């Protein structure tokens, strides 16, 4: 019984509706049941939750049970950003489900059903989950609703048009009949899919935009029952803790495992080779983590460092500074930056530097592997299914579809688990494969200890930006030349198709944007011989491009004698969404009112920054205080965000709060440094995270919008560092151009003014 409606379904959206019986077969084969049984978590594979006949699964995204439960299948990883809640909100909205009956589970690895947008790849990232799921999940809910309505109409012999659905109840008012979803699942499962369904208008939304909706994962994450990879224990499972070389690129030469094997409980010592994207080492297998770690620490290993990196952060910094004196590849060009040499212009020349950053997720990297007769099963806080399937398949010489992946909650990611080289996942598989050749075929869970995680590489690359910019006699910004130096996070990965003419767009995204500058050039130099593994970190390139751009804007405003907020406004003509968040944040922060004075001897200041990333627009004002002896405190951050339709307004707020805190931790303390190739940090003492006492008060204001939804996981972070650094200047006159800021502001040093570079022979 097709439901004819006016709303049209596009071809790509209609493709969402898969053959139901085929899906049930798949669901039956891939569904996993978890139950906590005191000692361990049992996992039963290849067993459907319900007898197929009673299960109503009209598409790949929803399953409705006879008990009225609505299970939303989430193709995006829940790593804290609220994806599970957002996806459930979209589907439940169009299904008119009872929110309390909605539960969420992670989708299996299958790009044919769960690809991200039109990429053909299944992954979570780029803050695009809500943007890409907005139509798809709503349509999935609407299809399920239409089938339930059709089933009720058939049962009650009434026209479908007279049936109402609200709060999980299907009702026919005239005949005073109503029922919950569960009673209709058998009948609905037997009906043909509707050809078209009509989606709600935003004015009809009850769940989307509802700030009172609570997260779907709050309950399990407050009673210890939420299952992370770290928590999963399969029958007979062994824990692997591995020893890695101190220098990237070193290989195993010799291992003496006498002392390790003497520790009671050690099952096996497994030397394993590295490969593209991951490093070899020696793993100890044991029934518990503590034994495995102690034995790992007792290994005596000689490494072959012939091909190991000897990169040194200080030398790298000098090298990048030298590279910034030379032209790079031109990434963006408008007008002619040679205009900068026109006599009479005021030219500023400033160099901004940011270090390597670790993601330092609370849950260190880990991965559970079981080699099976039909391939391999992986349990992971899985963020990049298709890339990982391909990489694992290549390593094991099997087909990608033989790599089954179960997505578990991830204890943070900030980009780390979307490793384009599949590094820690491949390491786990390599250990399991090597163990199998030694006769050990138990499931193996590789657990990185904190130090392994901190020193494991795949950092946000260090970057240097040298910006020369010119003001004319009227204080107008007339030219901007930005030279960017840093490693590519895409080179040699499945995403390097995005690189054009040797330009990795993630190295330059956000640079000088979106300011209207008549003479503009952005150049990029990408060293490819540094030897330190890098990858994306929350907001990718925007973290460093926003820092350099928004700090330079401030320096220019001050040089021009202008208010930094007004100076930005004048350069944002034609960018109404930037302007809206900038105006909102200035208004809410009281930009025009003077700051209240601080305690005796304390200096206070505020700074502003605006930056768009991943389709969303964010402006922030930071207020700082600096004591007489230079101690910095960020007191308050006011944030304005435009992310289109805010699907879950409270999740939007939470992501801005978290993005600010994450960015502040990095701005204040974050730096991974290398000395002669060895990473100097190892734990939360020398790689200090933001702590409670450092968290500023935060106010988040959301611009009401009917634009399509865009992301919130990343965009809250980029404006934070420049807003804080600009505030420090306002408070003290000290211009910070190198991150991290550190504990103290050198307030007794003279003001650092940008040099006048008009006589620089290099230009």
């Amino acid at each position, binding site marked *: 019984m097709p439901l004819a409606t006016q709303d049209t379904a596009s071809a790509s959206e209609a493709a969402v509706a898969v053959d139901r019986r085929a899906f049930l077969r798949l669901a039956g084969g891939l569904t996993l049941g978890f139950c906590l049984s005191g000692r361990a978590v049992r996992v039963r594979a290849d067993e459907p939750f319900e007898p197929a006949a009673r299960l109503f699964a009209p598409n790949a995204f929803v399953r409705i049970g006879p008990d009225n439960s609505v299970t939303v299948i989430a193709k995006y990883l829940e790593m804290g950003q609220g994806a599970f809640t957002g996806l459930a909100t979209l589907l439940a909205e169009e299904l008119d489900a009872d929110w309390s009956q909605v539960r969420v589970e992670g989708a299996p690895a299958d790009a044919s059903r769960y690809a991200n947008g039109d990429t053909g790849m299944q992954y979570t990232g780029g803050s695009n989950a809500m943007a890409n799921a907005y139509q798809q999940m709503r349509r999935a809910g609407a299809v399920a609703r239409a089938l339930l309505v059709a089933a009720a109409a058939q049962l009650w012999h009434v026209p479908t048009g007279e049936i109402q659905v609200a709060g999980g109840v299907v009702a026919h008012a005239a005949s005073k009949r109503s029922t919950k979803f569960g009673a209709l699942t058998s009948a609905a499962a037997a009906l043909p899919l509707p050809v078209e369904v009509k989606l709600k208008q935003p004015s009809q939304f009850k769940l989307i935009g509802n700030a009172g909706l*609570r997260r779907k994962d709050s*309950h399990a994450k*407050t*009673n210890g029952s939420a299952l992370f990879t770290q928590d999963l224990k399969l029958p007979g499972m062994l824990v692997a803790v591995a020893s890695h070389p101190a220098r990237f690129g070193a290989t195993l030469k010799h291992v003496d495992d006498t002392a390790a094997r003497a520790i009671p409980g050690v099952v096996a010592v497994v030397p394993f080779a590295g490969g593209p994207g991951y490093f070899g080492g020696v793993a100890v297998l044991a029934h518990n983590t503590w034994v495995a770690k102690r034995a790992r620490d007792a290994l005596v290993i000689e490494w072959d460092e012939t091909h190991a990196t000897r990169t040194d952060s200080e030398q790298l910094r000098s090298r990048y500074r030298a590279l910034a004196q030379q032209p790079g590849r031109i990434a963006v060009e408008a007008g002619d930056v040679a205009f900068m040499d026109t006599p009479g212009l005021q030219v500023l020349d400033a160099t901004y530097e940011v270090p390597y950053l670790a993601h330092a997720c609370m849950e260190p990297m880990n991965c559970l592997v079981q080699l099976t007769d039909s391939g391999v099963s992986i349990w992971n806080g899985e963020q990049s299914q298709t890339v990982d399937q391909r990489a694992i398949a290549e390593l094991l010489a099997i087909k990608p579809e033989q790599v089954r992946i179960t997505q578990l909650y991830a204890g*943070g990611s900030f980009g780390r688990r979307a490793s384009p080289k599949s590094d820690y996942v491949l390491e786990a598989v390599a250990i399991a494969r090597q163990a199998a050749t030694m006769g050990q075929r138990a499931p193996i869970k590789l657990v990185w200890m*904190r130090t392994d995680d901190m020193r494991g590489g795949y950092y946000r690359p260090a970057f240097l930006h040298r910006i020369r910019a010119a003001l004319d006699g009227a204080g107008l910004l007339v030219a901007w030349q930005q030279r960017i130096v840093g490693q590519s996070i895409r080179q040699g990965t499945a995403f390097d198709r995005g690189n054009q003419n040797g330009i990795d767009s993630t190295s330059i995204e956000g640079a000088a944007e979106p300011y209207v500058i008549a003479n503009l050039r952005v150049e990029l130099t990408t060293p490819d011989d540094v030897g330190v593994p890098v990858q994306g970190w929350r907001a990718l390139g925007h973290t460093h491009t926003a820092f350099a751009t928004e700090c330079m804007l401030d320096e220019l405003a001050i040089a021009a004698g202008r208010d930094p907020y007004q100076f930005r406004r004048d350069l944002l003509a034609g960018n109404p969404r930037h302007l809206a968040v900038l105006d909102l944040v200035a208004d809410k922060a009281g930009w025009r009112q003077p700051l209240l004075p601080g305690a005796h001897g304390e200096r206070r200041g505020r700074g502003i920054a605006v930056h768009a990333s991943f389709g969303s627009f964010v402006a922030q004002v930071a207020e700082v205080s600096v004591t007489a002896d230079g101690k910095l405190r960020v007191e308050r951050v006011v944030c304005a965000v435009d992310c289109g339709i805010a699907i879950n307004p409270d999740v939007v707020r939470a992501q801005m709060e978290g993005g600010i805190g994450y960015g502040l931790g990095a701005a204040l303390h974050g730096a991974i440094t290398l000395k002669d190739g060895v990473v100097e940090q190892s734990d939360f003492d020398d790689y200090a995270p*933001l702590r*409670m006492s450092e968290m500023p008060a935060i106010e988040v204001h959301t611009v009401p919008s009917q634009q399509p939804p865009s992301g919130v996981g990343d965009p809250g972070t980029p404006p934070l560092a420049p807003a804080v650094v600009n505030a420090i200047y306002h408070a003290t006159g000290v211009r910070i151009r190198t991150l991290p800021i550190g504990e103290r502001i050198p307030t007794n040093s003279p003001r650092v003014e940008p040099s006048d570079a008009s006589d620089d022979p290099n230009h």
Partner: protein
Amino acid sequence: MQTFTLNEREVSVDVADDMPLLWVLRDELGLTGTKYGCDRALCGACTVLLEGAAVRSCMTPVSAVDGKNVTTIENVAADPVGRVVQDVWRRLDVVQCGYCQSGQIIATMALLRAKPRPTDADIDAAMDGNVCRCATYVRIRAAIHQAASALGVEGA
């Protein structure tokens, strides 16, 4: 053999005396709500209550809890303070990734027992050892104040 009271039940484990309580809970007793975050009491993810006080189980040898009372996240709902804290945590949707939150909730229980009406400075002092990389600190602080108010009303 170590014997202690875990979440109101007596348990015995036959492990080395110096095995950290964290791994006894997680790997021997299957209580995985208490998390591993570091090995050096630097992050607080492994916080449990020992005789009502917050301790880092990663650096607490199991021998140190012999004959004593240990409470983990799995049993906070059975505690009058824990129940309120858990409820407020859910009402405010404090969690993001959630990995550190067992430790945050346990540390909050210990704080509220010691200081029923904590000031912001009390919260800073008590909670600075509990790292949250998602930076949910704004909500943790708000939740602690709300839980204190709720408990104050209940206790009045």
